Structure formats: C-alpha cells, structure tokens
C-alpha cells in the first residue's frame, strides 16, 4: 500500500542557468519516504516533506534555474512496502534521491536497492548504526543520529553525573537488544554497573510486571531499550507505580520530543534522553520552527525533520557543484568532500563511512512548573562535542574505510 502524495513541482527551469546542467529528465526528484500513518508519523511523516520543501526554497532552487520536485510516500514501517515503493520510484518515476526513512529494517533494505541502482540515500529517521558500519555503502549518508550516538550520549553522560547502576527494560527484538547492548557497553566502560535486564515481548502493552522487576533491582537508572508506543507505555506505567518517586530515574534510549508531547509533562518529567537537535536551542532553530510549525499542524520540528532539511540542503549544493544528479556515488563523494553548513546544524562534515558529524545533546524533561507552554519541554543537561558523539571511524567495520 503505497501512498504517493505528489506535491507541487517547484520552479520551472528557464533557458539560462539550466543550459549547463544535465539533470536526469530535467528534474531533480526528491523522494521523502517515511511512516505517514503509524507510530512514527508525528516525528517524521508529512513534516519531513515540509522540511524538504523548506530546504529547497531556502536553497533558492528557483533562482538558480534548478527544477526540483518532491514526492512523498508511506512505508508503514514495513521493509517490503518500503522496498516496493523505492523500486518503483527509482525504476519508473525517475526519483534521484531518497530521504528520511525511519525504521531501521526499512532503511537497510532501501540502502541495498539504492546502491544497486546508483542513486542517493540520505537517512534521517532511522537509527541503525550498521548503516555506517558493516552495511555501509557509497550511496548512503546517515545524517541525524544513530544508536551508537544515543547509547554513548545517554549512557556515558548519565554515568558521569552519578547514575552508575543500571537496569534495562528491553524490547525483545533486534533493535531493542542492539540498544541495550550498545548502552550496556558504554555504561561499563565509564565505570558503571549493569544490575540486570528484563526482555519484554514486542510489541507490549502492559509493563507493570517488568517495571516491578526493575524497581526490585534498586538500580538508580532504568534504561528503556525500546521505542515508540512501548516507551510511552513504559513511562506512563512507571509514573503510575511511583517508580521515580522511589528515587529511580528513567532513561529513554530512543525518544523524541513528540513522545514527550504525547505523554504530557506531568508523566514524563525527569526523563533523560539524547537528541541531535532541539527547536529551542538557539535563535536559528527558533526561526526555523516559526516557519515550520504552521505548515505542520502546529507540531514543532523534531531532530528528524531538521536532519531532512540539512541533508537536502547539502545534497542540492553537491548537485549544483557537479551540475548533474545522475551518478549517486559521485554525488555522495562530493557531499563527503564539501563541509556542511546550514542554519540548523551549523558547520559539520560527512565522514568516509557516510556518517554526518555534529554535536549531540543530553536533555532532561522539565517539570510542569518549569515549562512556559506547549513544546517547551527540555532543559539541556550536557553537550557532547562532535569529536566524541559518534563511533570512531576505525571501529565501525565499514568496508569503505578498511584500506
């Protein structure tokens, strides 16, 4: 079930500027694929399409004579739906670059297809650190965050501030266990101790039983190695059972501001998490948010949306420099060669393994009394500098790097 929502094609190429550029069928077609109807619809969804559109406008494609078209589709978090959409897009609809794609299973499948067809894949929504590890390709760039960065950010920053005993509540599937494994490694490396873990079935509804076990362990930090509605339910039920009142803190290993919004500050207060971007961090972000929110039902942009904006901007710069959108490998190589610079993420680089480098931030959810209104949810606990935020290049196991 593909949902192809064709949005208006932007700007028409007139003679002058376009004469020197050779774009496949004259257009640069950007395909934004993500979850438009399921658990991740709010943190990516139509918002990513809005972000991409804003990136194209801010880049001034029209002025430069570049014809850019944006299409969107829903992959419903299923790898087979995602693969089908991407295949059709690349074979039939002449899409040149695929953007966003949350849900790691889909992203991994898409990465393979994009490599086979030599186009470009800019991942913003998915988290699997394998995308810049064993599964890295010369056509994929992993933009916003990954599980290693989250584990490292949340894990080490919390241990360093006193949270040195951990208990994991893990979703019993590949992603959840990977999160647990990565975070546990970071915790022990920084001198903390993992007191135990419990694997809950995925997807779950009632976590009371597992939370009770977490409570009994008396660990200072309960790490939630799950995502989406599992995280929301865990936090909600933890509040019900008075877990935080007993002195334990919850650490969400993969959470977005939209999750906090769904929970409400009353329930989510004190939750600790790592994100790559927050709308209220600086003026440039706030400026972007003022333009973005009205176009997306008032929902404030998440780091995924910001990542899409940043990635599309850099892509367009590379395509402009090469004057072509045909060869995916060449474009990605160009994107790695040029340093990145955009209003949202500032200056940064793209590494050889396809990893975009920028600082990560550790946030704590405010108490209701500390918040001035809707979406004012985070206070900054720590900034992880870009040199430490992501997995070192040598440790990834990416075939492109090993020489």
């Amino acid at each position, binding site marked *: 079930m593909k949902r192809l929502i064709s949005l208006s094609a932007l700007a028409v190429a007139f003679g002058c500027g376009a004469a020197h550029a050779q774009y496949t069928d004259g257009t640069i077609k950007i395909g934004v694929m993500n979850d438009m109807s399921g658990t991740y619809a*709010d943190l990516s969804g139509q918002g990513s399409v809005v972000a991409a559109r804003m990136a194209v406008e801010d880049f001034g494609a029209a002025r430069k004579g570049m014809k850019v078209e944006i299409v969107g589709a829903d992959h419903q978090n299923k790898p087979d739906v995602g693969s089908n959409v991407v295949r059709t897009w690349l074979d039939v609809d002449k899409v040149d670059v695929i953007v966003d794609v949350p849900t790691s299973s889909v992203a991994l499948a898409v990465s393979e297809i994009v490599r086979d067809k030599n186009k470009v894949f800019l991942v913003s929504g998915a988290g699997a650190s394998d995308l810049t590890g064993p599964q890295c390709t010369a056509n994929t760039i992993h933009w916003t965050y990954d599980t290693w960065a989250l584990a490292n950010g949340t894990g080490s920053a919390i241990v360093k501030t006193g949270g040195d005993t951990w208990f994991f509540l893990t979703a019993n599937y590949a992603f959840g266990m990977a999160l647990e494994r990565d975070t546990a490694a970071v915790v022990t490396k920084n001198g903390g101790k993992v007191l135990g873990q419990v694997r809950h079935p995925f997807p779950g*509804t009632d976590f*009371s039983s597992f939370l*009770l076990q977490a409570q009994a362990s008396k660990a200072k930090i309960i790490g939630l190695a799950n995502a989406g509605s599992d995280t929301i339910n865990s936090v909600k039920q933890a509040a*019900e059972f008075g877990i935080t009142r007993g002195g334990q803190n919850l650490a969400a290993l993969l959470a977005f501001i939209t999750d906090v919004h769904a929970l409400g500050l009353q329930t989510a207060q004190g939750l600790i998490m790592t994100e790559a971007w927050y709308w209220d961090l600086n003026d440039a972000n706030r400026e972007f948010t003022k333009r973005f929110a009205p176009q997306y039902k008032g929902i404030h942009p998440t780091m995924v949306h910001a990542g899409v904006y940043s990635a599309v901007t850099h892509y367009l710069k590379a395509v402009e420099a090469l004057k072509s959108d045909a060869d995916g490998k060449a474009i990605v190589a160009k994107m790695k060669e040029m340093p990145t610079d955009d209003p949202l993420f500032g200056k940064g680089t793209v590494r050889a393994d396809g990893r975009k480098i920028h600082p990560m931030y550790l946030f704590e959810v405010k108490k209701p009394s500390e918040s001035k209104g809707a979406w004012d949810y985070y206070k900054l606990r720590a900034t992880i500098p870009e040199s430490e935020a992501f997995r070192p290049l040598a440790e990834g196991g990416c075939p492109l790097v090993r020489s």
Partner: protein
Amino acid sequence: MFEVFGVSSQVLFGQLLIGLINGSFYALLSLGLAVIFGMLNIINFTHGAQYMLGAFVAIFLLQYAGLGYWWALLIAPLVVGATGIIIERLFLRWLYQLDHLYGLLLTFGLALITEGVFRNYFGSSGLPYSVPPSLQGGQNLGFMFLPNYRAWVIVFSLTICLATWFVIERTKLGSYLRAATENPTLVRAFGINVPRMITLTYGFGVALAALAGVMAAPIYNVSPQMGANLIIVVFAVVVIGGMGSILGAIVTGFGLGLIEGLTKVFFPEASNTVIFVVMAVVLLIRPAGLFGRST
C-alpha cells in the same frame, strides 16, 4: 520470605497480583465475546474496535464535555452499545440464516473500517488520559506498591463479571435469552420478541467491550490499534474457556492473566505466546474447551 525457583516470594506475589489485574481485562473482554457468541452464534471481530471506541469516547467526554472518568464509565458503554445495536440492525441480522463465518467476515470488515477511520483522524501515537483523582496514589502492600486504580480494576471487573453471569444463568431474563438461542421459533411462539432480545444482547456485549476500554484508558496508551492485537488473545481465551460458556470466559480470563504473570517472571520472552501454547494444549485434550459443551 521464601524463594520459589530462585525468585523471592515478594516478587512472585507482586507479579501474581499484576497478572490478576491483566486477567480482569481479559475476563471483561472475553465476557462480552462469550455473551455475543453464546447467545447469537456470532464471532464479533469488531470487539477490539469497540473496546478502542470506549476508550476514545471517554477521552472525548473529558475533552469536549468536561465529563470525567465516572461519567465515562456510564456513558461510553451506552454510546458504543447504541452503535452496536445499529450495526446489528443494519448488517448482522441479514446474516443469521447464512453460515456463521460470514458474520465473522463482516465484523472483521467493520473492525477495519472503524480502526481505519480513527487512524486517519487521530494518528497512531495515541492520546493521553489520566487516572481519575479519586483513584490516584496507591497502597504499599509490603511486597509491592499497588496503585489504587489497579485495585479498582480488579474489584470492578469481578463485580461486572459475576453480575453478568448471574443475570444470564440465574434469572428469568437470562433463561429467555438462552432459550431464544436454542430455539428461536418456539420462544417466539410464546410471544417473546426474539429479534429485539438478540439486538439488545449484542448491544450489551458491545457495551461490555466499551466498558473495558474506559477502564483501560488511564493505564494503557489509547490509540486506534489498541484493540487489534488484544482481540486475538481474547479469542484464544474464549476458545480455551469454551465458546458458549460465560463462566468459562471469566475463569479462563483471570486464570490466563495469572499464568501470563507467572511467565513474565520466569520466562518473560514467552509471555506473548504462552496463551496460545495453553490453547493448543487444551484443544488437544479437550476440544470443546474447558467449560464448553461439545457441539
């Protein structure tokens, strides 16, 4: 405190209590299904969607009418029950002469429509609903901290289950219902309005689902899919209990909650599947279910 298989009795009792709470939901939901199937021979696949509707109506009542949890407990089942009656009058009554499987397919289609519409308007993340102030907080029982709301869930479910069982098995109204299922023509000849009884019974079963939905709203994430995965577990419960048996549904619901609770302690990864394993085992030994009558 003593230890059982390496788990302290404290933890064990806590888990069993939680299992009992979950069992209450299973019992309440399977009660509605069992009533509908026992009386009408219809498998109501829409049950999960109606459970979801109950929770959403509770949220709407709060958002748009300022009516809290206690009002919702009363109004939501009535509202959703009314939609049930409409469904029965509009769709289901054409299917009674046909194979029962068509009823299953129809209610499956209705479930898809309901969930699709709600997903369209409300997305999938879910909406918040908090525990009513009078039931917040909890008691420290020594071996665990029991939220008041969860204790209320057990008590209330048990009451509703026993009341329903009593009405159906021990009162005159119930006996009319049971007779009407076995031999509608004869009962009609006695002057009893059988079609109306059937409609009201379906409405009642649906109302039970909505009631479970209202009770779930404060503790489980309210989203359009909340009923979809739960409904299959409830089917398993009803099959184990014996498809027409009210008592079977209640006992099995609570029992399975306990078994699931135990599994979460000793073998948490399997807690999703244990119910189906039990179902397979029971079916091999007693094909009609624990309390069922062999047809």
